[in-house]
């Protein structure tokens, strides 16, 4: 995104803030509400910016569409490491980012952080009923580590920086393997352990262009896609070697 466009957005936002200053303690917006995964997609960054009315800490939580996640544990069987145990969590966000203007443990109360899923320890993941606490803790930690390895969650919060007393901004990075779907971006203003303002902005990650069409075709018309795959492979193989022989 160009600096000029960011500046224009900030200006528009400022004007909006001045109009609603009395009514709203917190206003925030994203530089874009949609991420398009095109053929050349290699990850992207969005700018989140806003203004607060009065002092406080700003926390940003970004969550991707939630769904089930199966965590498997390997153990050694006859000298080989094999998946021997698994727990299926429900309602796990596919993507998670948190950013804050201060270290998370100094913002709000543990209860508030839990409620708003602030920090990877608080991200929702419903285990099956009857899972023992020790087992749950082990597998939940395993889930967090796996998500961190894939770059889909972050445990070190991003920096929300203030420019002057009221304006703040942060960048949210999205890796190339970002899952598609509807995202939820929440911004909280916290003061003295209490949440005094909040704002939610929806965001969408979607595939566009030829990649999206290939994906749809592969999943909706799987048999036709299989047939096409064989024909393309035959044609491409034959054409490539024919071209090579002629040259």
């Amino acid at each position, binding site marked *: 995104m160009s600096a000029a466009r960011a500046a224009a957005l900030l200006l528009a936002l400022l004007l909006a803030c001045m109009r609603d200053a009395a009514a709203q303690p917190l206003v925030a917006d994203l530089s874009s509400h949609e991420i398009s*995964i095109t053929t050349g997609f290699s990850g992207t960054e969005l700018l989140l910016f806003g203004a607060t009315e009065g002092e406080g800490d700003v926390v940003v939580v970004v969550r991707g569409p939630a769904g089930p996640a199966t965590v498997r544990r390997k153990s*050694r069987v006859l000298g080989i490491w094999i998946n021997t145990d698994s727990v299926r969590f429900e309602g796990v966000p596919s993507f998670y980012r948190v950013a804050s203007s201060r270290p998370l443990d100094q913002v709000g109360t543990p209860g508030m952080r839990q409620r708003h899923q602030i920090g990877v320890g608080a991200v929702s993941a419903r285990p099956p009923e009857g899972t023992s606490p020790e087992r749950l803790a082990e597998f939940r930690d395993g889930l967090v580590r796996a998500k961190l390895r894939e770059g889909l969650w972050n445990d070190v919060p991003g920096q929300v920086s203030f420019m002057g007393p009221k304006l703040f901004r942060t960048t949210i990075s999205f890796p190339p393997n970002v899952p598609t779907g509807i995202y939820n971006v929440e911004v909280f203003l916290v003061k003295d352990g209490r949440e005094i303002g909040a704002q939610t902005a929806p965001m969408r990650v979607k595939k566009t262009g030829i990649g999206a069409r290939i994906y749809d075709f592969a999943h909706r018309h799987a048999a036709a896609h299989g047939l096409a795959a064989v024909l393309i492979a035959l044609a491409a193989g034959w054409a490539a070697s024919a071209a090579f022989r002629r040259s």
Partner: protein
Amino acid sequence: MQIYLPVAELSANWLLLLGLGGGVGLLSGLFGVGGGFLMTPLLIFIGVPPAIAVGSEAAQIVGASVSGALAHWRRNNVDFRMGFVLLAGGIFGSTIGVQVFALLRKAGQVELIIALAYVVILGAIGSLMLAESVRAMRRQRLTGTTRRGKLHQHTWLHGLPLKMRFPKSKLYISALLPFVVGAFVGLLAALMGVGGGFIMVPAMIYLLGMPTSVVVGTSLFQIVFVTANVTFLQAWQNQTVDMVLAVLLLVGGVVGAQFGARLGQKLRGEQLRGLMALLVLGVALKLAFDLVATPQDAFSLGGGRAH
């Protein structure tokens, strides 16, 4: 340099993929095998999910083998009769293989089975080939020439029923034999994302006793159709074929294979087989090490996707 692979749902460097295709293509041209047994593990090493690696590699092998199969056909190096029996077995084996693959995927054990299959098969084939080529090299040093013994020995295998004449290969053997070889190779094609040339070629030479002149052409003929069957079924039932990935590997592979084939004509057979054996053993050892070594984290995410 990044390209988004739509079915794999990840972004990869397309130059790296072309290069991988080219490198493996060079080796496959050199050794006269498809190269799937190298490509699938390499794809997994660079982070492609194993299921996608296996499915897409099958598509790549279809394309990589078709020009070779046509070339051998033109040179009259294909025993079609043998090819069709092998193919019947191959279709049978690969169709079962794709179903097994889907079940293993659901149970979260597909990566283990892929790795185990590689270690066992490649370890065995590699050791046999290495021993054979060392013996051949020694013999050559002793006598100065490579002598060929009897075409094949008679064993209990030749007492099996359903005997069939294969004039092109100058064989009169039970049709069950090539059928079973084809079925086994088809099963491996579905599970491992390989064409199976590295196992079929030795089986045709040592087990069936086919003359070497028709072995490569006939195995390529079988491989084209069996991997086409695997590609279709993996795409249909498991949605694990990424054609962007397959075509990139294919283009690199076809170019690499042409250079490999020219290079291969300048090297001696025993040395080639020895090199190939070392390569096969190397891949097997690396995979075996990964199975035995303590993983960085015993926990992993698998099975159901997050959306």
